[in-house]
Each structure stands twice: as C-alpha cells, then as structure tokens.
C-alpha cells in the first residue's frame, strides 16, 4: 500500500517533466522567427485576413476558390514573394476582429475592405496605399422622381448596420434639416431583400455595395444610384506595426500594380514587355537597373510574377467590377488612374 501511494507522485513528476521539456523545445522553434518576411518564407504561405462574403471584394466562387478585388491584392504579394499567387491562406474575420487580429500580428496582411482612418492607423497597424476609393451613397427606384440626396426628406432608408454607415446617414440628414426613418439590417443581402420588397424608399451603403445590390435585380435599370457621396471610405491594405521592411514590401507590390497599368503592362503582354524599349518598363520588370528589390528581400524580376499572376490594377478591377466582371459593374470614376482624371496614383518605381 505504502509503495503504491509513492508511485503516483513519481508518475506525475515524470509526465510533468516531459511536458516541460516539450514546452522548451517548442520555444526554441519559435525563437528562429526573425523578420516577417523570413517568417512568411519559412511558413511557405501568406496569411491574409480577408472576407468570404462580400461581393466584388472577397468571396467564394462556386468551386470554393477565394476570389475578389481584396483577395487578388493579397495574391499579388504572395506572387511577389513565392512566385505563386495560390500560396495564401485566407482567414475570414468579422468587422469587430479586424483591429485585434492585425494588432496581434497573427496575419501578414489585412485586406478586408477596411477604411483608413487616423485612429485605426494609430492603433491597428500600418496602412499601405489606398487601393479603392469608396463612399456612402443612396439608391432609389428610377421612377421615384428623386434626383438628388437633398430630395429625400421624409423617406424610409434600409441601411447595413456598421460602425459608420448609420452614423454618416444620421449626420447627413441632420446637417441638412431632412427627416428620415431608418430600418437597420445586418448585411447587404438583407438590405437587398427589404428594398426589393418595398419596405423602404432608399437603400444606403457604400457605393460599391449599392452597385452589387443593383446588379442583383432582374432589371438593374429600374434603380439608380444618386450622385452624392456622403462619406470618404479609402480602402487600404494594412500590415502589422513594427516591421518596416514588410510595410515597404507590401506598399511596393501595390505600386507595381498601379504603375503596370500606367505603363500598359498586362497579364498577356508582360513576357514581351521585358524586352520593351521603354526604360521605366524594363526597370519595373527587373531587366535593367533596380528600384529597391534587394532591400525589400525580393527577386529583381518579382514584378513579372506579380503581373503574370493577377494582372495590373485595371485588370484586377475589371475582373470583378468591369463591364463583364464576375460580380457587378461599377464605373471606375475616382478609381481611374490619375492620368484619366481619377485618384489612383503611385510613386515612381526607381
């Protein structure tokens, strides 16, 4: 009996020691983690916080592949590092998790339809480059007789619940002395259903989402989006604080996408463009000189991989929101290149 009582503690101590040794081994493994680029390379894929449920920006096609404007920006970064746009893991997160997720540094890039604001910049992470200019707008029935947001006095609005959408709406109507009744819904598809069934006169959301709702109707022409934009929503990929090389890397990949459109380099012609007689194009594609690739830890010709994988900025845009896009049609307007009167502009690659 006495012997037996002694053996249990012995067993306990032994097992606890095994666990402690294992914990120590685990610690050693983690200690090798250096810069984020090294971590990503060692892991073999890029972790993106994205969406799987937002038309145009991050969704699943029928076969289950992650697609969308935001997702392709992440794929561009993966292509720059690995030469493979499929070396990504998309982590779908909710709006409320965006902050903690990027603060904790668990994901490498946050491309989840996230608006750049000063508070978020200070608290969450580093905002790279504005890739999409969105803004809140209104949609009404074409035969309703409303031509401007200032005509909307005394109407009922269907609105997606969110941090800013409801607030912007209330501000706009109060500012202009108009009265309004709001019906709040969780997501775009519910606003679609409610607006379709006539529960409200106007639907309000970011203009890209209004375009999505509009194209979901059998007759999109029966509805129109009013010209006013009542908020600024600059959508920007975010990286965690504290790693300047990584911050610069993601920024540069975004600039490559924009510069490629500017120079007319596309998915189809990128191979022949390597021998172009335009010096700027040859530099971008790594055939001549350099624009900081070595400092970023990337191959000299990473831009070729990027453009081959996802195309230039315009091609990504058109893939989802162009005339024959997968999701819906949205005229580029502010998201035109600066050369064409839009706001999309990137520093030169040199």
């Amino acid at each position, binding site marked *: 009996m006495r012997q037996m009582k002694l053996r249990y503690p012995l*067993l306990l101590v032994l097992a606890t020691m095994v666990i402690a040794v294992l914990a120590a*081994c685990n610690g050693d493994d983690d200690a090798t983690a250096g810069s984020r680029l090294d971590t990503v390379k060692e892991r073999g894929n890029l*972790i993106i916080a994205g969406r799987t449920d937002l038309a145009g920006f991050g969704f699943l096609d029928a*076969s289950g592949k992650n697609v969308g404007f935001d997702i392709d920006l992440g794929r561009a970064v993966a292509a720059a590092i690995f030469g493979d746009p499929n070396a990504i*893991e998309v982590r779908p997160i909710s709006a409320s998790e965006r902050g903690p997720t990027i603060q*904790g540094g668990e994901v490498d890039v946050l491309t989840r339809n996230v608006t750049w604001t000063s508070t978020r910049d200070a608290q969450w992470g580093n905002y790279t480059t504005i890739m999409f200019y969105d803004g809140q707008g209104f949609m009404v029935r074409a035969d309703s007789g409303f031509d401007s947001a200032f005509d909307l006095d005394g109407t009922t609005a269907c609105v997606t619940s969110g941090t800013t959408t409801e607030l912007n709406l209330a501000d706009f109507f109060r500012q202009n002395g108009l009265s309004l009744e709001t019906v709040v819904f969780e997501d775009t598809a519910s606003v679609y259903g409610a607006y379709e069934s006539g529960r409200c006169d106007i639907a309000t959301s970011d203009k890209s989402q209004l375009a999505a709702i509009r194209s979901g109707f059998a007759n999109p022409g029966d509805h129109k989006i009013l010209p006013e934009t009542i908020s600024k929503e600059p959508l920007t990929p975010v990286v965690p604080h504290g790693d300047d090389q990584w911050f610069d890397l993601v920024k540069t990949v975004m600039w490559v996408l924009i510069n490629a459109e500017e120079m007319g380099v596309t998915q189809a012609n990128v191979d022949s463009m390597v021998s172009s007689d335009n010096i700027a194009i040859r530099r971008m594609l790594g055939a001549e000189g350099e624009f900081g690739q070595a400092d970023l830890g990337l191959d000299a010709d990473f831009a070729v991989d990027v453009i081959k994988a996802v195309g230039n900025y315009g091609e990504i845009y058109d893939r989802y929101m162009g005339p024959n896009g997968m999701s819906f049609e949205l005229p580029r307007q502010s998201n035109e290149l600066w050369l064409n009167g839009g706001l999309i502009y990137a520093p030169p690659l040199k």
Partner: protein
Amino acid sequence: MVGTPEVLPPSTSVGIVGWLKANLLSSPVNVALTVVVGTLTAIAAVAMARWLVSADWSPIHESLKLFLVGQYPSEELWRIGAVVVGATALMGVSWAVWGGVMRTFARIVAAAGLIVALTPIEPAGFDLAVRLWYLGSAASVALGFAVGRAASLGPKWVIRAWALAFFLGMALIWGFDERSLGSSLRMLFGAGATLTVVLAGAGWVGRFPLAVVLRWLAWGWAVVFVVTIVMAWGLGQTDLAPRVNTSRWGGLLLTFVLAIVGIVASFPIGVLLALGRRSRLPVLKGLSVAFIELVRGVPLVTLLFMTVVIVPLFLPQGTSFDLVLRAVFAITLFSSAYMAENIRGGLAAVPLGQIEGAKALGLGGFQTMLFIVLPQALRAVIPAIVGQFISLFKDTSLVVIVGLLDILGIGKSLFLGNVRWFGAQAEVYLFVAAVFWVFTFAMAYASRKVEESLGVGSR
C-alpha cells in the same frame, strides 16, 4: 339452436369515419377548430409548395462540394471518402455485434448511400468517382456486417475499433508532411504525458488501483504511438497524404470534426469534473466548482472570442495557433462544464444503499465508483447527456463569428458574396436546417432507443 347473428358495430364508430368522429369532430367546438386549423394548414401548405417549386436551388446544386467539405482540396477528397467508408464498415460490424439502434442506422446509411449513388440528379462535380464512393459506403456496411457475424467479435473489441478509427480518421484527414515527424513526436509525448498527468492525478486522488491506471496508460500510449509514429513517419516521407491545413476544412466536415471531437473530449472531462465536485478534498472540489461555475456563467460566443481574439495578444508576434484547434478547445471547455452538471445529477440520484451495499460486498472506492455508481448515474441522465450533445452539435455553427466556414458559414458566404444568389437566403438556410435536423433527429432517436433497451423509466 339458432345462432345469435353477429352484429357489426355501427359504421360511424369504426374505420376512418370513426377515427374522424372521435378525434376531429366530437363536439361543435372541435368541428369549428378542425375547420379553422385545417384551412390554415392548407393555405400554408399551398404557399410552401408554391415557394418550393419556384425556389432557386442553384447555390446548393452548384456548390454541393463546398457545403460538404468546404475548401478541402479536390485531389485529396479520397481521404474523406476513406474515412466515411471506414466508419460505415464499423457501423456494419456494430450492427452484427450489437443490433438494436445500430441495425437501424446501418440500414439507413446503406440505403442512403445506394440512393445517392444511383440518383439521377447531378450537382456540379458529382462524377462517377463520387458515385462509386457512395456505393462503396453502402457496400462496406454489408461487408462490415458479414465480418462482424463471421468473426463473432466481443463488444469490447468493437469499442476499441471505434476509438482507434477516430484517431486514425482524424490523422488521415489532417495528413502528414516531411515536417510532421517532429511535430508528431512532440504531439505523441505531449498527448501521452498529458494523459499520464490526468490519469495519475485522478488515480492518486481517487485511490484507484495502480494496476488499472497503468493498463489504461499502456493502452492510451499505444494508440497515440501507432497513430503518430507509424503514420507520420511512414506517410510523412511520401506524397500519399500531404498535410491539409485546417484553414481549408469547412462545410459539414468541419461541423462534424468540431462536434465529434467536442463530444468525445467533453464527456470524460465532464465525468471527472462531476466526481471532483462531489469529492471531499477541498482543493479538488473548489477547483471543480470554480471551473464549472465560471464556464457556465459565460456565453459560448464569449469563450470563442476569448480563444480567437485574446489569446493571440499573449503569443509572440507572427506565431499562429491553429484556429480549428482553438474553436475545439472553447467548445470542449464549454460543453464539459454542462456535462459535469448533468452527470452530477445522475450521481446524486444513485441511492446511498447502493454504495453501502458495495462496501458490504468488499468493493473498494474505485470499484464501487466504476462498477456500481457510474453505470447507474449515467443511465439515469442519458436524456440530459444526449440533449447536451445535440446542443453542442448545433452550437458548432457559432464558429462562423470567428471566421471558420462550417456548413452555415459556407452557405452565408455563398449568398452574401455572389450577386446572383443575393435572393437565395431562404433556400440556403432551409437546406442547412434540414441537414442539422437529420443529424440531431438521429441523435435523439438513438437516445430513445438506448433508454428503452436499458429500461430507463420502467425499472
């Protein structure tokens, strides 16, 4: 002698007419009620039928694979098929050995496999290979039944086979790569050592015989050893079953993994917690009570957010801890606290005389608990335990909020993200609800049958 002629009962008291009169039209009030309720039901049925016909089932038709296994790579789907066929074969064996509810389930599964394999409907990607897998699952039920009959296995071996199949199945779904040997070795020793701590701790406190604890330990280590070393080492060198990151698990597969692991893990933890709470040792009792009350005082959503959002803040930058594992952890914690309270109810229901009787027969504390108290306690609370399993199964759909795409998450993503399916919410929700209903109903049915066979309520 003139025989009395047989007089039949009046035609208004037998047959359909009799039933209608007795049940629907027995009084003026009932006649009125029947008319009103009948009309409403008819209106609802017509509206429902009209909707069902006009409904847009294309999200389910085109993305059935997504609903079933999420983003699990198509070229690795044979592994899911193998696990399913293995499970159906074991169902066949269980049918042969146990009969009862397993007979019903095995027959239904075999019939369902056959029907699906031969169905003329063709969702996207539903090719001959997939049909053959369904056919294979039906055939393996029969094969398992034949093997079970021929080998005349004892019930003990069937339980062991299910336990081993659980570990092998999980390992196969997860897969192996050349790096997995190191991590499996760590997992082997980690799991083994944890098992040792738990069993040794429980044995010490509960004064179990050392020999019993050592035998359990030997079994546990052996299973973990087989799974990790043999499979990870052997398969890790080949491309046969490469690692499939859990971030690609989804759909019904993920729902099942979360539910099954949650159920398997929370039951023993719940038993230990219940025993701990009734223990006379103050520290053990205090810890058990604290754990149970703390977890039960928090919604599952909060626990999920805790593990997913708060835990990373304490980890070093850049490390990433498996998301599915975290969700399983939260679900298991939550469920085991409720399980403990259910089982405590059962323990309290065992009359003191049983324990005194066991003592009088010379049984030790451990033997009394294992052979006298626990069987009676668990038998008494089967409905509550199964109720807990059912709610755990349904609760798994909450993982949507932490970014895992279980069957509900896949459905929501499809109708929210694809413009052409914006209007198909009702269809998707109805389909997901039907899937959940099938499995929860099966669990409830099994519970009823087990209660009947154990005579709960009748003795």
